[in-house]
């Protein structure tokens, strides 16, 4: 790819096709699709021009789905930026750059266990929708908010899903147990792909090590640049190494990191 081509691929002013607000602060944004080739787990940076300088930084978001119809983003309102994003309306233009980072690695024929904690579901949506052999996929989904906020009904039609509420310590113990059993089941030829909050990924990493599973985790650290120039997104790797989540990740194999020791 020449520099000129790359540039055209990365940086876009996209038109908002549709927005959708669900309960408890969940939102969908569908944008005019750029012609990217992408992997689930890759992300983009988004920054509407209307933000003036406050919020200052762009926001990293997983590519929830991308096909000929739309580039879809799915997010939960947690602060200033995600709240401002809910003001976008169809016809508006937003600036995005992507696809960024390393996505999940898997082959269509592999049995794959997906482990998602809350918004960690986002990168799996497109994966599930477009997987040529959905029978090879299975999802365990730990969630706090009401299930109806997530597109789970749709996903359950394509693959086997297990949803577990994750609000109390007791819930958590149940989730851990369920994951343990499943991870053991995928420890042979299978792959485990996980995305969710840091403690969730630590737990998954530990269970994977203990059960000899080949696991990849998607690390959502704060990011300023998203393309390797600021060194703000460091994650501690095994053996004292430091990785940059935005270019070395956000998806890492669990052994590369030291999460299970957290």
């Amino acid at each position, binding site marked *: 790819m020449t520099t000129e081509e790359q*540039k055209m691929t*990365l940086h876009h002013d996209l038109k908002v096709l549709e927005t959708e607000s669900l309960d408890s602060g969940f939102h969908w944004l569908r944008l005019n699709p750029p012609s990217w080739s992408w992997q689930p787990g890759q992300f983009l940076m988004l*920054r509407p021009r209307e933000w003036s*300088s406050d919020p*200052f930084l762009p926001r990293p978001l997983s590519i929830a789905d991308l096909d000929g119809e739309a580039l879809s983003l799915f997010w939960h309102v947690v602060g200033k930026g995600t709240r401002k994003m809910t003001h976008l309306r169809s016809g508006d233009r937003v600036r995005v750059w992507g696809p960024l980072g390393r996505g999940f690695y898997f082959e269509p024929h592999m049995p794959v266990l997906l482990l998602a904690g809350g918004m960690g579901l986002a990168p799996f949506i497109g994966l599930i929708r477009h997987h040529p052999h959905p029978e090879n996929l299975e999802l365990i989904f730990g969630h706090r908010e009401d299930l109806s906020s997530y597109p789970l009904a749709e996903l359950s039609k394509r693959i086997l899903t297990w949803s577990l509420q994750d609000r109390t310590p007791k819930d958590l113990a149940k989730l851990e147990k369920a994951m343990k059993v499943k991870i053991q089941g995928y420890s042979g030829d299978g792959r485990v792909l996980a995305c969710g909050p840091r403690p969730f990924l630590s737990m998954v990493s530990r269970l994977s090590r203990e059960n000899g599973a080949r696991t990849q985790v998607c690390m959502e650290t704060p990011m*300023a640049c998203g393309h390797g*120039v*600021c060194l703000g997104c460091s994650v501690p790797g095994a053996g004292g190494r430091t990785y940059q989540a935005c270019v070395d990740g956000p998806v890492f194999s669990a052994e590369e990191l030291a999460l299970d020791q957290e």
Partner: protein
Amino acid sequence: MEQTVALGGLTLKNPVLTASGTFGYGTEASAFGDVRFLGGIVVKGLSLEARPGNPGGRIAETPCGMLNSIGLENIGAGRFVREFLPRLPWQETPVVANIYAGDYDEFAELAAYLADQEGIAGLEVNISCPNVRAGGARFGQDPDMAAKACAAVREKAGDKPVILKLSPNVTDVTEIARAVEDAGADAVSLINTLSGMAVDIRTRRPVLGSVIGGLSGPAIKPVALQAVYRVCREVNIPVVGLGGITSAEDALEFILVGARAVQVGSASFADPQLPFSLVSRLEELCEELGIESWEEFRGRIETE
């Protein structure tokens, strides 16, 4: 309008450089633009040995700005020279190495090594980092220490220009500027980040692992302009202005108060094309405003 500017022996095809720590080692942003069109690039701060940087949270967003505490993570001067420099178009765009060290000898050694590299056009000395041996004081906050660090680098830098990068966290930045001018600096650049902090009232913890970090972005532009304005009236060496530049208008503001060149810093996180688009936008804006030459505009702020 002719955009070329001279900077302490260097000739820049335009006054737009990238700021250290916001443009990696110069190759990472190639998908957003072609560095050959830039006036120059200043790379991430280099030390003699590789450094791991700070643990914990490294960035925090603040109103119109951000805090960072990267902790000067870098791969070390040697690896930069071997792995990145050959991939940079240094024949066409000056590559300035930003350097820092824990003591004067280390500064001298680092300067000698880097000045010796053909692809390095000049050195920018970051004197805002804590001086470990002097118990946490900072070279950049004391005129004598700043002058000594400058002299140590200047002596070993051969024919390469030495730019001292000044900290705004001082009572009188012009005092430091005069001190390094006297110690042989070819130029100064300012401002580095302001000391700042962010906390999380729910976890009751600082957001940054290092507790206190450096504030950058549009929030600090008024402080930067003021510092550049004052320093330009006190020294005769060229001044490189930076701090919160997000547009060609901002760049012209720094030039109007006297800056010879400018650097684009954290605003390129909000728009990675900014350093590149600024170059052409600046040219257009000069046209629009009827600016005929840098000489006619630079420092020509009317304060009466």
